[in-house]
């Protein structure tokens, strides 16, 4: 049966759904960073193989760089301890490598794209232990 509280309750549930859909937990940073690093690497490889168009590759790399920057910022503001410092440095290095990849792709410099893709892959691998620790925890 409908009561005068029903619309407010329904609205509260909807707002809660939308609010939680917009949130991001700092403890998921390593997994998210590995995911975006691996995405950037795969985009670089796919672009070199002619599997994806320029516009898609550029847009996705921009998303990866922005997301890595946001994750680094979230981590800096939520966990300023020494161990997190290493992760913050790793994230910053990965973000810079993705930025280099993005710039190289913008110049259509295949050699630079290849090099930057390898850098992204190596830096993403370095974040692996954090992501695995997060999963185990």
């Amino acid at each position, binding site marked *: 049966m409908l009561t005068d509280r029903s619309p407010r309750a329904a609205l509260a549930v909807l707002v809660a*759904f939308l609010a*939680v859909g917009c949130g991001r937990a700092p403890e998921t940073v390593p997994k998210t960073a590995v995911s975006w690093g691996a995405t950037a690497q*795969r985009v670089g490889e*796919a672009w070199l193989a002619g599997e*994806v*168009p320029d516009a898609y590759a550029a847009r996705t790399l921009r998303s990866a760089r922005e997301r890595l920057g946001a994750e680094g910022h979230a981590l800096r503001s939520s966990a300023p301890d020494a161990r997190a410092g290493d992760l913050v440095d790793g994230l910053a290095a990965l973000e810079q490598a993705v930025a280099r990849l993005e710039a190289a792709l913008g110049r259509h410099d295949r050699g630079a794209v290849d090099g930057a893709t390898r850098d992204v892959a190596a830096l993403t691998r370095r974040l692996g232990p954090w992501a695995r620790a997060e999963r185990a925890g």
Partner: protein
Amino acid sequence: VKLLLALALSIVSSIGGFLEVGSITTAAQAGAEFRFRLLWAVAIGTVCVIFLTEMAGRFAAVSRHTIADAVRERFGVTAFLVTLVAMGGTSLLVLGAEIGGACVALQLATGIGFQWWALPVALALWLLLWRATFGFIENGVSLLGLVTLVFLAAAIMLRPSMRDVAAGLVPTVGPTDVARQGFLAVNILGASLTPYIFYFYSSGAVEEAWTPADLINNRIVAGVGMSFGGLLAAAVVVVAAMVFAPRGITIDRLDQAALLLTDVLGVWGFRLFVAALAIACFGAALEITLAVAYLVAQGFGWTWGENLRPRQAARFSLVYTGILMVGSAIVALGIDPLRLTNVSMGLSAAILPLAVVPFLFLMNDRHYMGKHRNGWVGNAVVTVVIGLAFVLAVVALPLQIFGG
């Protein structure tokens, strides 16, 4: 031969129309994060949707009533209005997600931001609804949707371990990320059992003037078509498990999902993914828009029908026009389509009891169903689905908070 062709067309349509943004993204997320472990959710959702779709079609064929008509008649105006508000609101969000999915596909193809495509996509949807017949919408767009078979082809080409796939069909959650697994399982079930499907299916049966003579066809279409559709959703899980999971790629944006098929099919993988996403979302957007317009018009007793000219069903046409404006506005605001999809699939799961409970009463009502009432198997399945629906309704919000 003509009857067999019509049956084949219906089966093909239900296969081609099965996947949409919700089933593609939730399946891709599940495979990328948990490999084959959540295949059971796809299987359960498929079994439930087979039974409920068959019942929705049987109800319409025997009683010549749609579900919305009967809910108002049997349970009263208040019950209908609660259903209308809950389903209408949720379906608007799902519509936004589908339009968003079609817009992202266009963004992938052109590089132009998805928000800019909201209005052109809505206009194309509106023109089709304004001009086309029900049969054209149901069969034409769904036939194009057969491009989604590419997911099955990719899954076969990747040669997954059948032992791992079979293990994934056993319902388990854990050992880590339990909340996240629960969240994705709920969203997969929400995507499989989106309530608009039953309203659309029963309205379509009335539009096409089904009679009890169509009951066998209805059973075959629901059984074969939906089973194959579920197989496609499972194929998305398998491909994501084999392509994304080893790399540690999780799907935070639909852009990432575009790489799903490139490992197997190269440049054609990208193109076919874009085509599959665009067509699946466009087709689903048409169905949702019609389903909500049907629900409103049937509930208020207005003239309705996609086979009528707009001026013959003016209020029905006005409703779908308004719905499309709201759905496209959600996308034009720039809300991330993937986030919108996850939220709307969670909400679909949360309101599932409202969609499913009436089945238990209507399918056993001698006044509507006569000798075609549910048997014990049908009632057992509906009872299980109702139990599942209440569990989903209770856990959907907490899982959005802890696993979303």
